[in-house]
């Protein structure tokens, strides 16, 4: 697992950046559309992306 992160850190950092830029728009749609389930999913995704940033950022 550690080797995987080390080998692909640059690509994963780029992917996490794209995700962090995209997911908040999903969160906006969910929060303003009154869809609490989707809001939780979006926040969960943000959390996963932040974990990825902590690993490869």
């Amino acid at each position, binding site marked *: 697992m550690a080797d995987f992160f080390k080998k692909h850190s*640059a690509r994963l*950092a*780029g992917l*996490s*950046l794209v995700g*962090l*830029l995209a*997911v*908040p*728009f999903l*969160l*906006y749609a*969910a*929060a*303003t559309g009154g869809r*609490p389930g989707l*809001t*939780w999913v*979006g*926040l969960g995704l*943000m*959390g996963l992306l*932040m*974990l990825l*940033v*902590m690993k490869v*950022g």
Partner: protein
Amino acid sequence: MTEFSLLKWFFAFSPIAVVLVLMIWFDWGGGRAGAAGWFTALIVSAALFGATPELLALAQTKGILLSLNVLYIIWMALVLYNVVSETGAIEAIGAGIQRFSGDKSIQLLIFGWIFGSFLQGVAGYGVPIAVVAPLLVGLGFSPMVAVAVPAIGHSWSVTFGSMGASFQAMMAVTGLGADFLAPWSAGLLGLAAYLCGLAALHVYGGWRLVGHGGPAVLAIGTAMAGTQYFLAVSGMWTLGGFGASLAGLAACLLVARAPFYRRQRAEAADSRMGLGWALSAYLILIVVVSLGVLCGPVRQFLGQVKLSLHFPEIRSAAGWVTPAGYGARISVFGHGGALLAYASLISFLVYRAKGYYSPGAAGRIVAKTIKSGVPTSLGIVSMVCFAMIMDQCGMTYLLAEGISRIFGATYPFFSPWIGLLGAFMTGSNTNSNVVFGVLQQRTADLAGLSVAVILAAQTTGGALGSMIAPAKIIVGCSTVGLAGQEGPVLRATIKYGLIITGLIGLATTLAAILTR
């Protein structure tokens, strides 16, 4: 409303404390530490400040809109720098500058103070130290001096450098305009310009060299501080640092001709590119930005497409209310980042037509931009997102209230130190303004102080923090063979950083009294 208690204040401070500890003691980068700060802010805001899922979701969207405003400039500034750098123009500019004078104090000022500021104006993100340090070693300065001098010398120009990315960030998070913020910010940073020039001389030759180079600092500093002030208050703050350094170069041409500084002969260095062609991309940038900012019809035409989102009123479970309104607006074709993109494209085509690129240059430009841009962007996005969580549930307000209670009337003296702390911990004036901008704004409001003066002190302290930011010192040391020996350089720059910030604190106190 959020009620004040010391325990709650410490919890509100905990995300910032986590970032500080991770960056200073554990050497984490901005992205990783920012992500840890995000988790801390998320947990504390939900547990103690009544953050609901909807509040957290909308805070993230607001954060990303703010981030995009800043990232647009950062990425395009990196593209322009790499378009120029790929031709060998940076070396040509260095060689051209070397012809000005053989006087050591003038050489130090040209490279460490003026050229470093020029590079900050067009690129930033550690480039000034990384480029200037090897050039100074080549001129015979010790590696320690070669890193410390540009680290100190360029720091005054950070706020309005990088096409004003740090200033843009401060405007974005505080919701205040350039007309309001620019005069005091340019004023305090102008004062810092003189102090950084004198400190750069002191690092190498002590008070003797300060006496010898002092008149040059006074003349060139006036040209740089004056130009920066003029550009900032006339709406061209994106060119503030860049224009100031060009004015500094012009002033230096005159100063270097003075008999006092012509006792030692200048040695000309060879370069395949003339200074004119090397600077042509930046001349193109000046034309593009001037047209985009000053020419009304062009500005209106480019400003037709603006992206933003409307946010409903946000109310935390603890009763903290953020009114409904639009988030940060992004002018897709008229933004500072767009102007940089136009200048980059035109410059690339000009250099390619002149044959300055070797095969595969476009690919290398893209690769270098991505390599530098991604880590910087992760740091900014993660920090902005946690700063927005803190802001939207009242944590920042509580911090500000606590600080205003503790420091009271002496707060203006400490405001630049907060900016300095932010830059030290994040390695970035931009991040410092994002993390502490709203806090300083709210504290000034609560204490009845001029918000413009306190935010000017915030960004000046943030700019000065560049000289002591470990991330930047590490970059500089790696280019002159001092990797792993950053300690002595940091000890030298910290001394000057603390003294200059103290003097800025006194100037802020005076300004706060005058504007009360």
